[in-house]
């Protein structure tokens, strides 16, 4: 990891490292998040350095809580940031829509990390649209270096308007790497004072009406700030004009020649006069932006209002796509409109059938055990497996096929309740420990309240694994000078008063299967906690005890039960024999547990 607290110089930083450095240089003193790719590394960095940087940082239980804590800090005059992946802002949208009415006193940045092309997400939503919905100012960096510098400018604008500001990044900014020059860290206090102002901070209808008008006024003021912002600048000369923002700007800059470019960094509200002046006299305009025609539709409106009859090319004309992230290959579709070098001729693809390499559950992953146990316990019964967001989503793959319905964080349990009432199929909802705390508790309570006959399996691997092993309420906190006890999931569930509750060790697949059968047969709400630490997390803590495993070929009857039920990547088939890959195997014993002939031996 780069030395983000370095006194000066320059370094090759990941976008998320650059943003973290930007927080230090901007005097941000309060940060909160719920981890989500592609924003996660900001939190991982802050977990390590926030205390030394004099900043308070927390992993909140979900994005809504993260948003509310940061909103309070900013309302007390402390510069703050809340950051999350794009779908996280859906969870935090409720407080955002009304905080816009109250506004803030210290700067508040709402960082949303969008994921065009869905590299690690369930949808491709364009969160720029939230800035119009909430009437909040928005900025979009194009590179790691610009992202770092933009943090301070975003704080300045947020404070000038006394409004939270949406700082919108995408995967190719968060996970791009570039050279970043370090500036001076800012001096700031981590403590503010909340000056009460009921008419502003208590949005009962009478006050909210006034605040709505105030917000519309501020939106007009923000337009003026956007007009003069150095983040919206013009480059180059040409008869053709290109209007662009975000990472798309880097493709335009490198690939397209003889055009004039209006690069927008302050993208809500748009600098309407600047855009009209830019368009006036051009022979054509091209809009280059990923996902929704956010700029394009506004530019068309600006053209109409200013009686500019210049052709505008982009998504609406079919020249550029709405779907997936842009790349030089996508930009090449503009070759008939602009001057660019001929693209290289790629080697033709290899025709051989190549095995796929999708992401997969790790060797010794305890999720394999609970999936195998559930499958055995369910037998031929007609079940609907609801899953959730985490590593266990990968249970969708064969041989498990343990995901029939996934929508969002915490969504599986709510859906299981619906399946319980609307079908005669048995719903089973898998949910991770961190996701349980995030949004799994209200649907469980709702299931009990409404007597949904379902099974909820909490796959508790003692960490927030998929996003890079962040702590969660189930692990307790031990960083930034704050230590808290782990919350007991079983005690939480018991408090709700479900009809069946048990904790199992997923490595003992046979025993877990018996318990799962009882849960499935329960006429009510059943909860099974499958508790075993993620081996990757144990490895990180240097607490993983590896046991040697080998297959006794003389006892093996080649039934392949181990391969078919656990399907661990450490089990390798050579000819008709099953062998154990000693490099990958951790000696969890799941394969030995399911072997009908005790042919697999795990040495203690």
């Amino acid at each position, binding site marked *: 990891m780069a030395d983000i607290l370095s006194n000066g110089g320059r370094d090759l930083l990941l976008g998320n490292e650059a943003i973290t450095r930007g927080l230090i240089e901007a005097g941000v003193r309060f940060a909160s998040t719920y981890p989500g790719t592609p924003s996660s590394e900001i939190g991982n960095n802050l977990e390590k350095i926030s205390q030394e940087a004099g900043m308070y940082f927390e992993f909140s239980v979900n994005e809504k809580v993260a948003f509310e804590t940061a909103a309070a800090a900013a309302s007390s005059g402390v510069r703050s940031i809340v950051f999350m992946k794009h779908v996280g802002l859906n969870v935090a949208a409720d407080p955002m829509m009304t905080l816009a009415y109250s506004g803030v006193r210290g700067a508040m940045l709402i960082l949303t990390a969008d994921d065009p092309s869905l590299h690690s997400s369930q949808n491709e939503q364009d969160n720029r649209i939230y800035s119009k919905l909430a009437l909040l100012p928005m900025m979009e960096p194009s590179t790691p270096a610009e992202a770092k510098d933009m943090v301070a400018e975003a704080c300045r604008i947020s404070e000038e308007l006394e409004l939270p500001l949406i700082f919108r990044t995408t995967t190719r900014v968060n996970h791009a790497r570039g050279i970043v020059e370090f500036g001076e860290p800012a001096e700031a206090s981590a403590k503010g004072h909340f000056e009460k102002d009921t008419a502003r901070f208590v949005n009962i209808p009478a006050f909210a009406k006034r605040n709505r008008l105030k917000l519309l006024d501020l939106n007009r003021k923000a337009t003026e700030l956007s007009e003069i912002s150095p983040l919206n600048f013009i480059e180059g000369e040409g008869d053709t004009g290109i209007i662009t923002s975000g990472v798309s700007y880097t493709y335009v800059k490198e690939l397209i020649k003889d055009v004039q470019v209006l690069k927008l960094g302050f993208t809500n509200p748009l600098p309407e006069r600047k855009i009209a002046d830019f368009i006036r006299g051009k022979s054509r305009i091209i809009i280059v932006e990923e996902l929704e025609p956010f700029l394009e539709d506004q530019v068309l409106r600006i053209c109409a209002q200013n009686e500019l009859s210049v052709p505008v090319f982009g998504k609406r004309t079919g020249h550029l796509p709405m779907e997936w992230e842009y790349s030089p290959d996508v930009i090449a579709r503009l070759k008939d409109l602009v001057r660019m070098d001929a693209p290289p001729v790629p080697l033709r693809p290899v025709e051989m059938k190549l095995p796929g390499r999708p992401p997969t559950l*790790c060797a010794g992953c305890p999720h394999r055990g609970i999936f195998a146990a559930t499958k055995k316990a369910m037998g031929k019964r007609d079940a609907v497996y609801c899953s959730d967001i985490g590593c266990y989503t990968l249970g969708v793959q064969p041989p498990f096929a343990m995901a029939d319905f996934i929508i969002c964080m915490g969504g599986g349990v709510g859906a299981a309740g619906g399946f319980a009432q609307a079908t005669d199929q048995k719903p089973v909802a898998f949910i991770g420990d961190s996701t349980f705390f995030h949004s799994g508790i209200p649907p469980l309570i709702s299931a009990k309240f409404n007597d949904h006959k379902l099974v909820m399996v909490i796959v508790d691997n003692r960490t927030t694994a998929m996003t890079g092993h962040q702590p969660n309420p189930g692990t307790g906190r031990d960083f930034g000078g704050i230590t808290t006890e782990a919350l007991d999931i079983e005690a939480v569930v018991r408090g709700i008063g479900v009809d069946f509750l048990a904790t199992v060790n997923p490595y003992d697949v046979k025993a877990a299967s018996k318990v799962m059968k009882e849960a499935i047969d329960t006429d009510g709400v059943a909860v099974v906690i499958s508790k075993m630490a993620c081996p990757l997390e144990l490895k990180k803590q240097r607490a993983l005890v590896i046991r040697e495993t080998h297959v006794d070929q003389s006892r093996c009857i080649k039934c392949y039960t181990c391969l078919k039920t656990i399907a661990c*990547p450490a*089990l390798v088939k050579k000819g008709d024999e099953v062998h154990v890959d000693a490099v990958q195997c951790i000696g969890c014993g799941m394969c030995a547990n399911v072997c009908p002939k005790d042919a697999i031996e795990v040495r203690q």
Partner: protein
Amino acid sequence: MRYTIQIVGVGGQGVLLASMVLGSAAMKAGYKVAMSEVHGMAQRGGSVLCTLRFGEEAVSPLEYSGGADLLMGFEPVETCRNISLANRDTRILMNLDPVYPSMVAAGFEEYPDVDEMVSAVRGRTENLVTIDATSIAVEAGKAVAANAVMIGAVAAAKGFPLSKDLLKEMLAENVPPKFTDLNMKAFDMGYDYMSKQRN
């Protein structure tokens, strides 16, 4: 000058480390650097691709298909899968040591014949150098140094714009001190191997 390296492989093979070493060296050499990495879900045993671009005006983190000057393939299937990142003039370095996908390991899918994969690539370009980086690394002391072998080999590739000494220095900065000697040795062996190839 503008130079693009595409690095392909499997999570855990050291693709990210290799890209950091090469990127740091490019920065030290005074170039602008733009890189793109894969993080998150794909790292769970999935295919990994890193794009590294440097030069006087490099700003885009992605490259055209076929736009690579150098394709570093850490794994044969991944090299084949990503062959269209290269054009006829692209230098291709292809490690021959397979990493079996889980469905292959479990016997549900076939892993293609490595020689056949090499001929498929050779049938498309004259600029292929194959390397058994893992064997060389074992000879140097430990299999984990295979990525240092790959970086050393790249340093000797025809037309490669960054100096051997600079790459070595950056490699030393990016590995734990107790593995410095191993990595330096592996780097040199990779460099010597490549120097002996017609490339």
